[in-house]
């Protein structure tokens, strides 16, 4: 009954989708800056974002955290807009602004009334090359990011465990270094480090402008040419080539104990392929695999086996994020129920995985997931900042507009066979890191 309904709906929704592409315009300025405009005229709001194709994984060795530190320092002012003036002007215009850093990108955004776009562009373009830093700015802000690291990481056993796990996963690739940086390296980051990084990577030919909301593409183009157009490209910008992982030939394991742990869990991650430009099929299959295994607790395979059929787990989860420049990870989590050990939880996970590989994909759940993906594209239209984020992030990791717009269709083309083939390539414990987060150190090291 429900399945039949699902099929009719898929057809109706498929017809509704292509209109979306018409609302997206893209072009490139002469200096190489890519521009994406997404129209949504429901409210007089615009989101203005500039994404730089540089992140923590592009940092020089020994200077971990410099990409994120620079992101903070970008608010310290220029000649035209001295310290604090940027945020002041955004707020004086009723807007809000912020920035974020990942391994693959650094992005700055403002959310303002659509008729204030001119000023936002003027200010953002100005600080692409005009940043001024004093020693005092740098030393004060270093205190702020050390407190940010305290808040996010040092105060959280789960976050510290995550750092250990990534460091074990990425032996050679800089994805093994935390975005915020190792504490002992943050303490030494200098003004010169920040400015060197800035001059190397902050240039229009390394940036993407995304403007979304109640805007006209022609006006956005005129404003972008006026403000960003005059900034010269950096001719010395090198291709992004990070050290890649060697083949992993042995399983890696770690046990992390901290008295602040309240809920122990076992987490396993496998090195996994990411979405590649023009080649997203494997990633599409893996994103279904994550949902099938550990999406909704009451219907996913691990949830059904470990939480419903047996009471082994308090909860289970699986995760995969394909938007990444280099190899990403596919992860599984099992939090044992009261009285169940981490070893028992891990054994149950392995047994369930073996059973999944033998049984294959549940067709009914698979159809439901496809339906949900289509609905997600409709719901996404209600969130203009989310759409801007989607395009900016994808372009920053080297995807094209066509890749972004083709992704929903690629998701719909995935077959159960694709999913199982991807699973067979993925699940090899010799290419996995298995970590236990626990309250007390184990009496003896397992295996």
């Amino acid at each position, binding site marked *: 009954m*429900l*399945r039949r*309904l699902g099929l009719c*709906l898929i057809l*109706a929704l498929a017809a*509704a989708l292509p209109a979306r592409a018409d609302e997206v315009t893209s072009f490139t300025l002469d200096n190489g800056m890519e521009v994406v405009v997404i129209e949504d005229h*429901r*409210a*007089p*709001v615009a989101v203005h974002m500039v994404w730089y194709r540089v992140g923590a994984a592009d940092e020089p060795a020994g200077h971990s955290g410099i990409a994120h530190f620079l992101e903070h320092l970008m608010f310290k002012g220029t000649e*035209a807009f001295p310290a*604090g003036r940027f*945020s*002041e002007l955004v*707020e*004086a*215009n*009723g*807007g*809000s602004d912020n920035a974020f850093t990942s391994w693959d990108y650094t992005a700055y955004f403002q959310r303002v*009334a659509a*008729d*204030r776009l001119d*000023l936002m562009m003027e200010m953002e373009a100005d600080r692409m090359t005009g940043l001024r830093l004093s020693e005092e700015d740098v*030393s*004060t*802000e*270093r*205190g*702020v990011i050390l*407190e940010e690291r*305290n*808040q996010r990481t*040092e*105060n959280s*056993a789960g976050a510290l465990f995550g750092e250990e796990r990534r460091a074990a996963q990425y032996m050679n690739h800089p994805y093994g270094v935390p975005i915020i940086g190792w504490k002992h390296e943050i303490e030494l980051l200098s003004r010169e480090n920040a400015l060197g990084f800035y001059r190397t990577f902050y240039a229009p030919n390394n940036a993407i402008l995304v403007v979304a*909301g109640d805007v006209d593409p022609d006006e956005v183009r005129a404003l972008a040419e006026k403000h960003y157009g005059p900034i010269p490209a950096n001719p010395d910008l090198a291709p992004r080539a990070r050290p890649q992982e060697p083949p992993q030939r042995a399983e890696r394991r770690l046990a992390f104990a901290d*008295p*602040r742990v*309240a809920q122990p869990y076992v987490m396993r991650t496998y090195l996994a392929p990411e979405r590649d430009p023009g080649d997203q099929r494997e990633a599409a299959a893996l994103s279904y695999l994550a949902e099938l295994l550990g999406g*909704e*607790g*009451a*219907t996913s395979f691990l949830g059904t086996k470990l939480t*419903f059929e047996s*009471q082994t787990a*308090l909860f289970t989860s699986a995760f995969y994020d394909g938007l990444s420049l280099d190899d990403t990870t596919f992860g599984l989590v099992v*939090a044992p*129920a009261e009285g169940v050990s981490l070893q028992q939880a891990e054994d149950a996970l392995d047994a369930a995985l073996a059973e999944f590989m033998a049984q294959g994909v549940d067709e*009914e759940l698979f159809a*439901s997931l496809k*339906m949900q993906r*289509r*609905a997600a594209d*409709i*719901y996404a*239209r*209600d*969130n*203009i900042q989310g759409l801007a984020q989607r395009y900016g992030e994808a372009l920053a990791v080297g995807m094209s507009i066509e890749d972004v717009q083709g992704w929903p269709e690629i998701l719909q083309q995935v077959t159960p066979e694709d999913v199982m083939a991807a699973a067979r390539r993925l699940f090899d414990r010799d290419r996995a890191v298995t970590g236990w987060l626990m309250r007390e150190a184990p009496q003896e090291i397992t295996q």
Partner: protein
Amino acid sequence: MIRLAHALILTLAMALPLRAEVEIQEVTSPGGIDAWLVESHEIPMLALEIRFRGGASLDAPGKRGAINLMTGLLEEGAGDMDARAFAAARDGLAADIGFDVGADMLSVSVRALTENRDQVMALLRLALHEPRFDADAIERVRGQVLSIIRSDEKDPDTIAARTFDRLAFGDHPYGSSLNGTPDSVAALTRDDLVEAKARVMARDRLIVSAVGDITAGELGALLDGLFEGLPETGAPMPPQAEFALKGGVTVVPFDTPQAVAVFGHEGLKRDDPDFITAYVLNEVLGAGGFTSRLMTEVREKRGLTYGVYSYIYPMDHAALMLGQVASANDRVAEAIEVIRAEWQKAATEGLTEEELAAVKTYLTGAYPLRFDGNGPIARILTGMQLDGLSPDYVRTRNAMIEAVTLEDIRRVAGELLNPDGLHFVVVGRPAGLESTH
């Protein structure tokens, strides 16, 4: 040159008509259920927000945690569907149905496609009227709640907030976690959950907002379909909560590198005539943004924290003026000293003319930007109804902000901000700080 250009822009910003372009319709269903509606047919979806006032503070005596556990079980099976069948049906329709509960309300948040809206509402009706509370589901969710309680006991932010609440409100429901204690949760029975549902999910405390691809007529039918048959009345609302905390410091020893502080004193209620003035004042003192006084002094100038905030926190049965900061154990005492000084300065001097002008421009300019999607608008409408405001508020609100004067600010700052009454709960191993009893 550049300065001049910006002066012009600022003037323009103030002169422009400020638009919060939503048409709010007050809808009453044939069966007598009231709701607020904003029609928006651009996207084939509906955002529906439902609230039952009273929330977890309506727990029966000795049954702390019952309403929270009951809320967690509303999506764990209803009618002839067990938990897995219910989840499969909901996901097959690609609908979001979220249940949550707080100190003052139980929330149901729904997102549905137009094409299958009727099926989603039929499913939601089952969850609202005929949740099964199956024995295995109760044990599963009870285990999850107990895990959350254990995690909260190890989380410095939660320890700080809970300690503040306990010291401030004692035996009132506001003084304890709505999750309950390990003992109270372990003792809850199925009968307790049935009773908990009857206490909170009743029509006399219902608030509904709908935004999206639906007409008033369709919404009327939808409301009757959802709510007809719910009990007319539930448990009486809890009494006013007495605020028992005096100024000072309470240190909660906890081994972690960064100390977390929650601080505050009594505030004012949402219906207080000075609320808007206090809101404007607090925006400058410590609400969001990088330009607040607290952020400038504690973070930007001294690098003592990643974030410091203050909040006006009106509840249904109490009113607080709160804040929080996190700073390394050896620096938190300095952060607290700076915060006290800023409190003192604002209490005696209020704001400057420039600050008041700038914050008015910000608040009035930012207000229309909030209405940027069906989901956000539905939540704004719900908040307005909970606060007892009229639909007209979206048009009059900015004029109220504009009307606030420096004298108003100075008077309200003197009445509201009490540096000596500030109590800091500090979790960690703070150097140079001790409890003051």
